[in-house]
Each structure stands twice: as structure tokens, then as C-alpha cells.
């Protein structure tokens, strides 16, 4: 199996559409086309082997199922996973004559995905940095009151960033990658330090995403409590996320009512005791 220039170009376009930030809007782009499961479907169609594409997509999707990118913090780049990793994995699976749905094929796909996903974050930061140029042009237009220009800034120019950081890398890596993959595998064996480290990094990075979420939610030490309760419900009791959410509702209701009780309380108390109660504001700091 090889990847022609035409196939590689189409992959490059999908890479541009599905990036974070991508040219298709996050709903259709990153959250649909970018998901490896969908990437598997697309790559399968492009390379003409749907089954292998989907199988590779499923394997990679499992690794990135909870990928959140809070505040533009991207710990794995999905354009690379879905439109470089999956095609290359498909080539490698074919080259080794593995059955598409075998465990070995899935392992191969996973490792290829993590490899390009982690390394590929540089593409994300590249795109975002290049966009600074178009934003700069945008500010000038705003100053001049030339608002129509904003559409070009928001919808047009960023394609140039993607030409450099999505299209070309995808084009080259998928077209020439087929042979590179083989070379890579000998150069970087799975039981060598670099690959072991890479995969460990892949497993550790989601912690950053979760931690950024936490930062948005946690003000005082007590705000960790719901997090750990949720963690315990899922880790120790194997509750799934919908069930965890249901249980969280009763606590949400309690804290809502508590907060209302305390605030009404304070309103009521304020005129009587002259604000001496403010210290329970600090209840979080004990």
C-alpha cells in the first residue's frame, strides 16, 4: 500500500479542517473530523480500505477519548493523530500483513498515533503562532473601521497558516512516510528508552488537561472534595460518567440550597448585627 500525491493532498485538507484551531469550526472540525474514529472512516475511504481505517481509528480513539484542550492547551494534536498517524498505521499494517482487526494491528496503530500525536503538538503551536500575523492585520483594519476585513482575517488568511502547519506536513509525511515508518521501527524499537518515554508521556499528558479544568473549578482546598468524590465513584465503584453525573446532582442541589440559605441569612443578619458575620466568607480558608 502506498499513498499517492492526490490521496496525501486530500488528507492534508482534512488535517487543515480538523485541527485545533481548524478551518471547519470546532463542532464540525476538531470535535467531528478530528476525532480518530471519524479520521479512521475518512482515511479508510481515501485509501480505499475502510475496514483497516476504522479499526485503526477505533484503537487510537480509545487513547484520546477524553482529550480536552482547555484554554488552548493541547497535549496531543489530533490532525496529526487522525490524518498522519492513521494513514501511516494503515500502511504499516498492510506492510506487515496483519489482520486489520487483530490486537497487533491495534497496538501498532496506538503507538503510531501516540507518536505523531505527541510530536505533532508543535503543529498546533505553529499554527497559533502564525495566526498572530493575521490578527495583527485585523487590528489595523479595526482601527481604520474597515470591519469587512475581519471576515478575511477570521475565515480566510488562517488557511495560509494551515498550508504550512497542516497541509504540507501531512502531505509530505503521508506520501513519504510509508518507507519512513519501516525505518522508524528499526531506529526506535518499542523497548528502547525513547519510545518507552514517549508512551509514558502520552499517558501523563492528559493529566495536564484535567489539571487545567481543575484550576478553573478549584478556588480553595475544599473545592477538591467534589473532584475526589467523583474520582472515587468512578475509580473504586466503576460508576460510568452518566451515573456519576446523576449522583452529582443531589450534591449540586444541596450546595445550591446551602448557598441560598447562607446568603439570605447574611442579608437578614447584616442590618441586625452589622456585618460581623463576614468571617464565614472565609470558611474556605480553614
Amino acid at each position, binding site marked *: 500500500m502506498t499513498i499517492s500525491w492526490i490521496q496525501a493532498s486530500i488528507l492534508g485538507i482534512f488535517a487543515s479542517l480538523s485541527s485545533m484551531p481548524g478551518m471547519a*469550526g470546532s*463542532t*464540525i472540525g476538531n*470535535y467531528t473530523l478530528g*476525532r480518530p*474514529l471519524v479520521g479512521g*472512516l475518512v482515511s479508510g475511504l481515501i485509501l480505499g480500505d*475502510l*475496514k483497516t481505517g*476504522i*479499526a485503526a481509528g477505533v484503537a487510537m*480513539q480509545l487513547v484520546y*477519548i*477524553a482529550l*480536552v*484542550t*482547555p*484554554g488552548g492547551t493541547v497535549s496531543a494534536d489530533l490532525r496529526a493523530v487522525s490524518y498522519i498517524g492513521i494513514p501511516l498505521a494503515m500502511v504499516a499494517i498492510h506492510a506487515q500483513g496483519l489482520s486489520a482487526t487483530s490486537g497487533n494491528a491495534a*497496538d501498532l496503530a496506538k*503507538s503510531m498515533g501516540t507518536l505523531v500525536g505527541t510530536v505533532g503538538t508543535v503543529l498546533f*503551536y505553529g499554527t*497559533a*503562532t502564525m*495566526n498572530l500575523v493575521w490578527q495583527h492585520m*485585523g487590528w489595523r483594519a*479595526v482601527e481604520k*473601521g474597515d*470591519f469587512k476585513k475581519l471576515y478575511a482575517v*477570521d475565515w480566510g488568511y488562517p488557511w495560509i497558516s494551515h498550508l504550512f502547519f497542516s497541509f504540507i506536513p501531512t502531505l509530505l509525511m503521508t506520501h513519504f512516510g510509508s518507507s519512513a515508518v519501516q525505518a522508524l521501527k528499526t531506529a526506535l524499537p*518499542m523497548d528502547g*528508552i525513547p519510545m*518507552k518515554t*514517549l*508512551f*509514558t508521556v*502520552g499517558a501523563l*499528558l492528559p*493529566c*495536564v488537561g484535567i*489539571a487545567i*479544568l481543575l*484550576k478553573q*473549578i478549584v478556588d480553595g482546598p475544599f*473545592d*477538591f472534595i467534589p473532584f*475526589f468524590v*467523583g*474520582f*472515587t465513584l*468512578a*475509580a*473504586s465503584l466503576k460508576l*460510568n*460518567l452518566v451515573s*456519576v453525573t446523576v449522583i452529582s*446532582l443531589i450534591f449540586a442541589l444541596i450546595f*445550591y*440550597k446551602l*448557598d*441560598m440559605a447562607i446568603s439570605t441569612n447574611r442579608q437578614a443578619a447584616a442590618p441586625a448585627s452589622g456585618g460581623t458575620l463576614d468571617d464565614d466568607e472565609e470558611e474556605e480558608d480553614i
Partner: protein
Amino acid sequence: MATIDKKTLSRKTLNKAFHHWFYGHLTAFSQEHMQTFGYLTSMLPIVEELYDNKEDQEKAMKTYTAFFNTEPQLGTIIVGITASLEEARANQGISNEGGVDDTTINGLRAGLMGPIAGIGDSLVVGTLIPVILGIALGMSEGGSPLGAIFYIIVWNLLGYFGMRFAFFKGYELGDKAVGILIGAQGKAIRKAIATIGGMVVGGVAATWVTVRTSFQLKNSSGKAYLVLQNQLDSVYPGLLTAGFIVLCWWLMAKKNISPIKVMLILVVVALVGVLIGFFNPGLTY
């Protein structure tokens, strides 16, 4: 302000504004101005309809040059609210003091974008999408395209109509939404939602993030008499995962280290861990 010439945004303009946001919220993203340009393009049709005179338009557009970033799906409600506030400002006269002004609008945007980012990232991106994906994965086992198609349809319908709903709900409620989202009751509601968010993020972390150690002590005959991971699990299941998350949080929240630097620290940790045999992903090609 006379009732005779009360300006109301046309449905067509609102639709335009919504679609500009739906499409363009992140396309021109940079680390400096994340969703600001998406916001600007979304407000443009609104401003153009409300103000005939160029000067007023410029004054209005200025408001939206402030930094903006939130979770784009749920955040649509903020765009809807500002549409309604802008309408109110136009009716009251943009140069009149008091009432809705720059400070009101940007205070609101700044006040809402944080919490809604937190909630949206955890509930939409961190929970809703993984749950739909989880179901889809089941359907695509064995290489069937069914799951992928299912995901595309379900998520995009939910995403599009959900965002649409949020936008028009926000427009409809206008500053009433602010009343609900800010103030004593708003504080209580945010507290309640943060509780859900916290528990769900905990659940997400425990379900989808897995940090495990491969450390073992073996006796002479090669039998492991201490499998560290098992010991840790018996103390608290998921201890290592929780520990690493708290570590990252601590580095960022308490030591003010940027996420990128934290990632680099993790690379070092991973390398050291691999070298001393603490980590070993145990994969093969």
C-alpha cells in the same frame, strides 16, 4: 428611547450572527487573542443593523476587541446575551451615560467566560463527547463504519441545535440571564454547577486517564513479591493518576508554571521513570 422607533434585531441578522459564531469562533485562534476575532465577526452583522452611523458602529465594535475565550459550544449563550444587550444599548442611545455600556458588557463577558469554559470543557468536551464516542466505539468494533457515522450524526445534531438553542435563549433572556448568572442566586447556581463539574471531572479523570507504574520487586526465583501498582490500588484505586493530576494542578495554580512548562516537566518525569523502571508502557509494534 421613544417606543415608536424601538429597534429590534431581525431574525435574519440573529441567524447570521449565530452562524458566524458557529463557524468562526476558533478559526483565527492565537495564544494572544483566542476567540476575539470570532466574536467580532459574530457581532458585526448585529452592530451593522443596529447602528446606521459609522461612528456608532465603531464605538460598538470596540467593545468586542477585548480578549475573549470560553468553551465555544456552551459559550454561545454569552454571544446571545450580548446580542440582546447591544440591542438595549442601541435603543437607549450608545453615547448616553448609564444603562448598558462598555463596562457592563465586558464585565459580563469576562465574568461568564471563565465559569462557562470550566463547565463546558468538563461537561461537553470531557463528558458528553466521550460518552457518545464510547457508544460509537462499541458499534465500530470489528471495523464497521456504523459507529463513526452514528457519532457524526448524533454529535453534530446535538452540537448545532444545542448551540442554536443557547444563542437564542441567551438573546431572549438578555440581562435577565445576567440576573440569573450573577448575584446571590447566580452564585448559588454556579456553586451547584461547579459541584457537578468537579465530580464529573473526577469521574472523567478516573475513567479515561490512567497512570500506572510497572515497578516490581522480585525474589531470586523471579517471582514478584511486591507489585507496586497493586499496593497502590489497595490504598486508593487510581492513586497515581490522582497524584499526577494534583501535581500538575499544584505546579500551575500554586507555582504559576505555564502548561507548556508542566508538559516539559512531565517529559522529564517520564524519562526518569522509564530509566529507573517505574514506568513501562509495555507496548510492541
